[in-house]
């Protein structure tokens, strides 16, 4: 290889700069610990781990049930009945979305736009 003494260090430097954001952040999803606690501590609609990772799946299911099927209630696996309502159910417990939704979303670079239409979300819009 011609000019290896320039090209090899150059390549190494490039790779380092290029991967710096990944190396420095440690990779993976950041878990935020100091979220605003729910008002009712007896448990969420679904399992806590599921809610942390997949709450959008629940919300999407709820949306289709309510709008398309006319089913405005959700019976969870444990038999508890919840009204399918962001304001009536989610926000009645998570009353401080700015310190709940926003906190995780901002750290993880998620930018949902739920708050463009639905009221009660913080500045993170979802």
């Amino acid at each position, binding site marked *: 290889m011609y000019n290896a003494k320039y090209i090899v260090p150059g390549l190494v430097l490039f790779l380092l700069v290029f991967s710096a954001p990944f190396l420095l952040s440690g990779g993976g999803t950041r878990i935020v610990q100091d979220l605003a606690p729910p008002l009712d501590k007896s448990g969420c609609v679904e399992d806590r781990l599921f809610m942390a990772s997949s709450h959008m799946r629940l919300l999407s299911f709820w949306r289709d049930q309510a709008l398309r099927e006319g089913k405005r*209630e959700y019976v969870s696996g444990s038999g508890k009945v919840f009204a399918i309502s962001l304001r009536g159910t989610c926000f009645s417990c998570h009353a401080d979305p700015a310190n709940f939704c926003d906190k995780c979303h901002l750290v993880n670079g998620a930018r949902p736009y739920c708050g463009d239409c639905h009221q009660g979300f913080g500045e993170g819009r979802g």
Partner: protein
Amino acid sequence: MKKRRRFLELAGMSFLALVGKILQPDPVRAFSLSGVGRVHARTLKAKRWAMLIDTLKFNDAEKFAVVIRACHSFHNVPSIAGGQEVKWIWKDTVERVFGEETADYKAKGLQAGDCLLSCNHCDNPACVSVCPVGATFRRPDGIVAMDYHRCIGCRFCMSACPYGARSFNFSDPRLHIAALNPDYPARARGIVEKCGFCSELLDRGEMPLCVKASDGAIVFGDLADPDSGVSRLLSKRTSIRRNEKLGAGPGLYYLI
């Protein structure tokens, strides 16, 4: 020769490893929802919801204003003047509403003046046929509803609707809402919106807001049930619909 064999083996194994990695169950996604949706016990059910508007009882401007305000203030409909107007329920003169059929209808007893208008929740809704993303759909009870989450703002439905029942949000509607009702979402810029026959209230056992505010001038009920209030009124009084020859099958009847 050996080199080539070795290369093919390696390539094959790498490919299998990659496929395995892609197919590997994600521990988070493997979770599924534990519950199911359920219809509210108080839900009002029908095979075909329809609305009867008694034109004789809509005789002064205030009557229209009360009904329109009841709907628009609850549903966070922005008030914008001019061509970018957003409306779920509104009024216009009978000449403009019934067009060339006005003379025939006047002979049947239609009074001159204004007329209340809204989405007709058609039997064959053109807006549903043209929506490329399934944002507009017809519920089994006849309500032509919208899933605003899915709307991409293409406005095909606005071109397709023969009744002008749909409005587009050219700007952020929140800038044009005096007092936001926290109990109902607003819409966003670039979204089409329209009346949904208050399906969210029907699903909780309440009548639509315009019906409640009309003081008996609007009757709402099941067209498929011969004993319902709407069916009985329709058999007793003369009624007309907008532009019936189109075959859309509008669900708004005007009693004259």
